[in-house]
């Protein structure tokens, strides 16, 4: 059991679009950065790798100790995370660790965590308990993998895994609710009953914010508007108030990087201009259906209660009028005189970070400290104990 609440815990939520990390007890995450990485396949010996090797050899001969990330040098690709992604590099592909809302590439997740701890929060993970928000669809295997990585590589003193839907539900004061989490990569509908996710009710759809961005890009393209990523041109001030735009030709830029740049900036733009009237019929069609299907897979006794507390969260849920529309359409689709109520926080920051905020509060509760899965327990019972500690 871990009882120290004097060292604050770290809460980290790696979503399909952005990664949120910060201290428990804060009301917004300290670091928010894209949860994609740039990767350069290292076929031959590049200059950089050579320099690295030489430096390594030098340090080896000096003190005989091996540098910390020796395994990183062995991997064939070089990964760039966070701000390092802001610079264009030749042949850099942008890849995401997630596919359909679940983690497929742990190496990338590892890099993202590492970046969050050491570059953004500037902490030593060995000193802080860690609360990780995981997708509701996570399998037991994935949870074990996450726990193993955290204990073995980062040597965290204590760990807790909490499901996204549960955190969202708690953050809005309900232990039973139907959580509609519309994020960047996907939309997940999950029923939470008394603090547990009902696994059979979980429904996912690949339509999320990125899909909307794609649609918007297509529609702009069809109108003949060309969107240029920022790196592809230079703006020079030739005279006071006079600007000259010079196009740059960078043939080695990969397609995925170009797309990433355009999307990230467009998304920022969309978030700033939420009053932007978007034709959201694409994303909303099917959502009421998903909600009804999900509810129907639950026990008949709790259906009424679920329908009367549908929680809307995630970055894409800030679309104008989504709440009203969802409420109306679910009401039309549901049978009889059921009460349908869609709840969403009026504060868009709270909606975007609802999962993180939930985790932040949970981890900062004095009375929560006995719930941690501690390093001692990990060593005693092994990694599968996580399933018992954090159901």
């Amino acid at each position: 059991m871990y009882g120290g609440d004097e060292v604050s815990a770290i809460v980290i939520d790696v979503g399909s679009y952005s990664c949120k990390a910060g201290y428990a007890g804060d009301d917004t995450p300290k670091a928010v950065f894209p949860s994609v990485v740039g990767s350069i396949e290292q076929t031959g010996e590049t200059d950089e790798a050579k320099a690295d090797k030489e430096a390594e050899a030098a340090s080896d001969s000096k003190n005989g100790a091996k540098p910390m990330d020796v395994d990183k040098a062995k991997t064939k690709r070089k990964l760039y995370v966070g701000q390092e992604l802001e610079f264009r590099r030749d042949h850099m592909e942008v890849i995401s660790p997630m596919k359909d809302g679940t983690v497929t590439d742990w190496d990338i997740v590892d890099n993202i965590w590492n970046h969050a701890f050491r570059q953004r929060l500037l902490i030593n993970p060995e000193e802080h308990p860690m609360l990780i928000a995981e997708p509701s669809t996570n399998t037991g295997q994935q949870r074990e993998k996450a726990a193993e990585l955290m204990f073995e590589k980062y040597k965290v003193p204590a760990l807790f895994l909490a499901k996204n839907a549960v955190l969202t539900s708690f953050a809005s004061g309900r232990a039973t609710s139907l959580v509609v989490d519309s994020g960047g990569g996907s939309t997940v509908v999950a029923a939470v009953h008394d603090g547990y996710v009902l696994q059979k009710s979980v429904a996912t759809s690949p339509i999320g914010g990125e899909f909307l961005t794609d649609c918007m890009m297509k529609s702009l393209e069809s109108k003949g508007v060309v969107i240029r990523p920022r790196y592809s041109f230079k703006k020079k001030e030739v005279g006071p108030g006079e600007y000259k735009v010079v196009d740059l030709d960078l043939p080695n830029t990969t397609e995925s990087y170009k797309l990433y740049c355009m999307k990230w900036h467009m998304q920022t733009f969309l978030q700033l201009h939420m009053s932007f009237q978007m034709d959201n019929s694409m994303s909303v069609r099917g959502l009421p259906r998903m909600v009804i299907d999900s509810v129907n897979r639950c026990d008949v006794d709790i259906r009424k209660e679920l329908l009367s507390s549908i929680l809307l969260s995630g970055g894409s849920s800030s679309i104008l009028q989504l709440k009203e529309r969802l409420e109306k359409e679910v009401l039309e689709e549901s049978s009889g005189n059921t009460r349908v109520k869609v709840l969403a926080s009026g504060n868009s920051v709270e909606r975007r970070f609802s999962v993180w905020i939930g985790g932040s509060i949970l981890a900062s509760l004095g009375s929560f400290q006995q719930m941690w899965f501690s390093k001692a327990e990990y060593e005693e019972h092994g990694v599968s104990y996580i399933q018992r500690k954090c159901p």
Partner: protein
Amino acid sequence: MANAASGMAVDDECKLKFLELKAKRTYRFIIYKIDEKKKMVVVEKVGEPVLNYDDFAASLPANECRYAIFDYDFVTEENCQKSKIFFIAWSPDTSRVRSKMIYASSKDRFKRELDGIQVELQATDPTEVGLDVIRGRAN
């Protein structure tokens, strides 16, 4: 089994008052709150049996979370006197996220202490604990 729960303790007084309400019917309602300093759920207020629903509704603070027990008396269609014990988790939208979180995560544990709850309600605004809702759920 461990859950994503806060692990707030429950004051013995909570159980005693509830048993009195259930067995002796000495109260109309009980309002509980979480004392963050003591890390436990405590009784905030009790209502005499002569009080009615309106007094109960007035006792719920507008922007703070509470748990509440309400003993609802009604007459069925067959002209039969009945009563049902309601458990209400009150967490208005305007309350602090932190307190909503604490109340939601402690609810399950607290509810298990009170044996004999017949209907459970979650409410974020007064319409969700309206007399019509209570009447609807009682039948």
